[in-house]
């Protein structure tokens, strides 16, 4: 069921707003759709609300207003069991991997298989080996997470995220803090896995260069709203001031360089007040 028959969209976000109890709105009236089989990027400044959006898609947070529909089901209607059932078709890669530190690489990848299926150990062994081979770490199966480099840990986490062949894969800042080689490796894996599994991938990131080439479509979030959307090429050509500042890494623009402060001259002259 690779391309949207029946349910056309993998994810539909309709007029979603979200605020924590403190009242400060994190997302305001966000709407977007994510078609099946595509790799979609959600980009923006730190603290713009993109991670919150990802959490709403994952069902970890409930929108204060609006609806989120994932793989055909409204997250609002789901109870704990329903949420867990939905997540079995999803995989999530956390920012630093979030591997279980008391288990080996092999056991980490085998974890979802052991918890959610009654497969015999021989079959699990085959599946784990295949997943590790896909991310290039079959030889590291016996290592412990503490012995892995950042890039390797993230690749293992990726193998774990796809262990149950999910239909929707979420990536929370997958490129943060990686060296260029690991960077490229992960990016290629994201595309390859998405296409092989026939899944839909959502990447939350602020790494411009890689994402523009990697994704099929891109949403730009700023201060809790969607300010721009388009394919990688369209975004590059965009004249929208925020997009221009972001893509070109300009220090000043719609997002100001200076944190709001009183007049400079006066601040220098007056002595602590």
């Amino acid at each position, binding site marked *: 069921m690779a391309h949207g028959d029946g349910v056309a969209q993998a994810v539909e976000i309709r007029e979603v707003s979200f605020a924590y109890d403190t009242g400060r709105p994190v997302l305001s009236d966000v709407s977007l759709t994510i078609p099946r089989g595509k790799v979609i990027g959600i980009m923006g400044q730190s603290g713009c609300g993109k991670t919150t959006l990802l959490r709403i898609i*994952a069902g*970890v947070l409930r929108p204060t207003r609006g609806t989120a529909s994932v793989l055909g089901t409204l997250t609002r209607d789901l109870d704990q069991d329903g*949420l*867990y*059932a939905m*997540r*079995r078709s*999803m*995989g*999530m890669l*956390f*920012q*630093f991997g*979030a*591997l*279980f*530190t008391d288990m080996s690489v092999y056991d980490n990848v085998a*974890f*979802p298989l052991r*918890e*959610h299926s009654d497969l015999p150990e021989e079959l699990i062994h085959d599946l784990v080996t295949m997943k590790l081979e896909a991310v290039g770490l079959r030889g590291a199966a016996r290592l412990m997470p503490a012995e892995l480099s950042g890039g390797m840990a993230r690749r293992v*986490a990726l193998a*774990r995220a796809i262990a149950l062949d999910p239909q929707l894969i979420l990536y929370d800042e997958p490129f943060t803090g990686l060296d260029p080689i690991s960077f490229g490796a992960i990016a290629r894996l994201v595309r390859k896995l998405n296409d092989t599994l026939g899944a839909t991938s959502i990447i939350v990131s602020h790494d411009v260069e890689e994402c523009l080439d990697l994704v099929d479509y891109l949403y730009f979030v700023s201060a809790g709203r969607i300010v721009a959307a388009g394919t990688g090429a369209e975004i590059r050509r965009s004249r929208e001031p925020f997009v221009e500042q972001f893509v070109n890494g300009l220090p000043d623009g719609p997002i100001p360089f200076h944190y709001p402060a009183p007049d400079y001259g006066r601040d220098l002259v007056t002595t602590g007040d």
Partner: protein
Amino acid sequence: MQALRAFIESLGHRVNGMVLRLGFASRFFFYMLLHSGTAMRRFRLTLREIYFAGVLSLIIILVSGTFVGMVLALQGYETLQRFGSTEALGILLALSLVRELGPVVAGLLFASRAGSAITAEIGLMKATEQIAAMEMMAVDPIARVIAPRFWGGAISMPLLAALFSAAGIFGGYLIGVQLIGIDEGAFWSQMQAAVDVRKDIVNGVIKSVVFGIAVCWIAVFEGYDAPPTAEGVSGATTRTVVTSSLAILALDFVLTAFMFTGGNGL
């Protein structure tokens, strides 16, 4: 006047916060009890926790117990000598250990060693998003991670308290009978005559069970509720030890009042 008002406001705020937290902790506790099926069915998970909480505490418990017993024997002999009742040393030793020192001191040691370890482990798992990852993989972390640690600790605690008391009596025997020279027969027979299984030993076991539940509840809750930062985890670990210790002493008072006074026992 303003300062007084501000003080009362902040006090009320803090008490409010504590009550809210207690409510959250209670809800958490009952949820965990309800979802303890996994910990029981896949007993290997709990077994692993019994190893980490119980077996690894053995050395400190046995050594401390022996020393406490030896000190009790020395001090007790010193005082009893003045009344010419040195044969009562066995009674003194056994009753102090079985009724009070066994459950309480073992509980305090357990809280500092195993309780803090449990809190730190869970807190770190939370800080490194392992708990969130488990939730995303549709595995209930409370059933899989928290409950086994609670039950592992709660099962270990009474065993450790019994071992503490036994070690203490042994230590006291070494000092009293072997070193000081009290009559061995009198030592044991007086002890047996005065220590009632129902009243003293069973009550002591009940105390250690209650302490175990309290300490483990506090330990897993503080770990689960810790802010996911380095200071957060370290603060949670400290809070576990402090709160557990206070809880043990307070519960000890309540239980002792029920069990050993008013002449009603069990």
